[in-house]
């Protein structure tokens, strides 16, 4: 287990170097000059030159990259071009919203997806199975911006049950929970659908296994056969899907944050890209990559707890 964690950490370091280099280069060679955006439409050529000099944009690109990396290694992600706020601080103020939303969406996705998939599998070809499979397909296909807008239209504008947007109240308060419901459903739907499909197929495979027949032959009750003997075996591929989805959600979900006016990491990133705010783009991308690797490491650790055949020693 320690070996696995060390190994993943090493992978993470190499990955972050690679990603930061790619992002850095693509930002620098992409059209658009941060100075013109910072200076605004009235800036003269000499204003722009001064801004570029101040930001260090006149140095050779590789030198700029090494300067940046030197800072990152020391824990300094740099400062935003737009407002001089430190990038770590910008992320720290935005990340809690994204984290709340990601966790809430995952809860929605798991609570709907896992039971739906399992019931579909044990009642294969029943009306429940057919309708849940159809809904799952729809869930994967519906674009988030449309679903989000429809939910707002119905529950916020028409029925006025839930707020239109924002996510600023603490999540444990009633207001905070109300704010979370619609975005969590919007984001969780696609994940729920994926989890349902995966749970169904994994369960279908497991309930035909010989050891399930053994369990029945021992006199284990029908429900216990499913929820004790089959579920744990079926969970491995499902947890992989949950991990991947959670990784994506943690990276900020640009569209949903935009639709519900949530100041999360996704919005921070998209605003920074629009403003050619290189340090903020870099910082958020590195955050997303790190979280993705960490979540997948957690998934691997969970595997070992679920399935005794998996050992990392």
């Amino acid at each position, binding site marked *: 287990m320690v070996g696995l964690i060390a190994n993943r950490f090493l992978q993470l370091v190499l990955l972050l170097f690679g990603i930061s280099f790619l992002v850095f280069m693509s930002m620098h060679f992409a059209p658009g000059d941060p100075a013109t955006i910072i200076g605004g439409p009235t800036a003269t050529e000499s204003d722009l030159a001064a801004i570029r000099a101040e930001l260090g944009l006149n140095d050779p690109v590789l030198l700029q990259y090494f300067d940046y990396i030197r800072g990152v290694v020391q824990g300094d992600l740099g400062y935003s071009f737009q407002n001089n706020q430190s990038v770590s601080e910008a992320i720290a103020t935005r990340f809690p919203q994204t984290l709340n939303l990601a966790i809430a969406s995952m809860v929605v996705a798991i609570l709907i997806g896992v039971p739906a998939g399992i019931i579909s599998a044990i009642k294969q070809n029943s009306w429940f199975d057919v309708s849940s499979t159809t809904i799952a397909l729809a869930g994967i296909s519906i674009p988030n911006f449309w679903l989000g807008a429809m939910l707002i239209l119905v529950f916020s504008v028409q029925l006025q049950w839930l707020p239109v947007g924002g996510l600023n109240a603490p999540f444990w308060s009633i207001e905070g929970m109300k704010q979370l419901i619609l975005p969590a459903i919007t984001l969780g739907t696609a994940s729920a659908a994926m989890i349902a499909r995966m749970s169904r197929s994994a369960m279908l495979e497991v309930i035909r296994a010989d050891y399930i027949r053994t369990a029945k*032959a021992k*006199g284990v009750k029908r429900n216990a056969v499913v929820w004790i003997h089959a579920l744990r075996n079926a969970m491995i591929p499902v947890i992989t899907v949950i991990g991947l989805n959670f990784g994506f959600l943690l990276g900020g979900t640009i569209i949903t944050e935009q639709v519900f006016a949530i100041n999360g990491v996704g919005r921070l990133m998209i605003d920074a890209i629009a403003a050619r705010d290189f340090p903020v783009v870099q910082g958020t991308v590195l955050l997303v990559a790190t979280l993705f690797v960490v979540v997948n490491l957690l998934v691997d650790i969970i595997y070992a707890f679920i399935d005794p055949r998996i050992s990392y020693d």
Partner: protein
Amino acid sequence: METLLNVNNLVTSFRTAKEKIQAVRGVSFSVDKGETLCIVGESGCGKSITTLSIMGLLPDNGEISEGSITFQGQELTKKKEEEMRRHRGNDISMIFQEPMTALNPVFTVGYQIMEPLNLHTNLGKNEKRKRAVELLNQVGLSNPEKTLKKYPHELSGGMRQRVMIAISLACNPSLLIADEPTTALDVTIQAQILDLIDDLKEKMGMGVLMVTHDMGVVAEVADRVMVMYAGNVVETGTVKEVFENPSHPYTKGLLASVPNVDEEDHSLEAIPGTLPNLNEKIAGCRFHPRCPYAMDKCRKEDPPHFRITDQQQSKCWLHEEVPSHESTHKAYS
């Protein structure tokens, strides 16, 4: 001898998209206390379905459409699922063909052995543990305390089958159903497992219903044999009768297809053709297309069971009158 299990005219059928097909077509037999009955036949002849019908473990599209199964005087086909569940793993237990996959990979051996005890007894935690250790000792696994904590993947095939047997014996069953328990094992391990089942049968006075396609296994453990072909019983008798004086052409074919090292000029004979599909309609005897003795009558009328001796019966027109064994032996020798 006291009759433990009595199956009478069992018909088991499966619903498919097109039609209802019969996998078991009117099978009757009985198993006495302390007796081993072997069901023999090719894959697909209905032997496993017969055992699953007794257990009440048919797949969702399968059902017992006719006949009765009585166990210790109680009719099983009329019982509700919950009542059947209380028999399973308790007084009727079953071991399966594939020891490698028959144990749940995510639970310890201890959990899996103690599970039937949890379900069917009121033993306390320590008593269950003691019983589990006792069972592992009984099936010849050394170091039972340690084995309890192991997972199936840490055991060999033979050890896993011993664990399966321990699980099936946990509640002292009166009837043990073994569906090809040694097919997936090495020959040396096979003999050990068969001896073990035989020993335990003697000690515990169980009735054993063993399914196999291996005539060697039959010779080793059976008291009586029942030969099945395409959903029908074609011959029954004691081991001695069936091996020394096989009366159905199919049984003869099965025996002729077993290698014999004692006879130097013994040549293996395969039975020509293949088992018919379950839904295939065959007029007359279902074996006639493959039978070297088929007569006109065989193509028209399905033969009843003819009694040959007190124990031996054959579903073959050749035995309509007193058979002359001389003539019927030639075709396979």
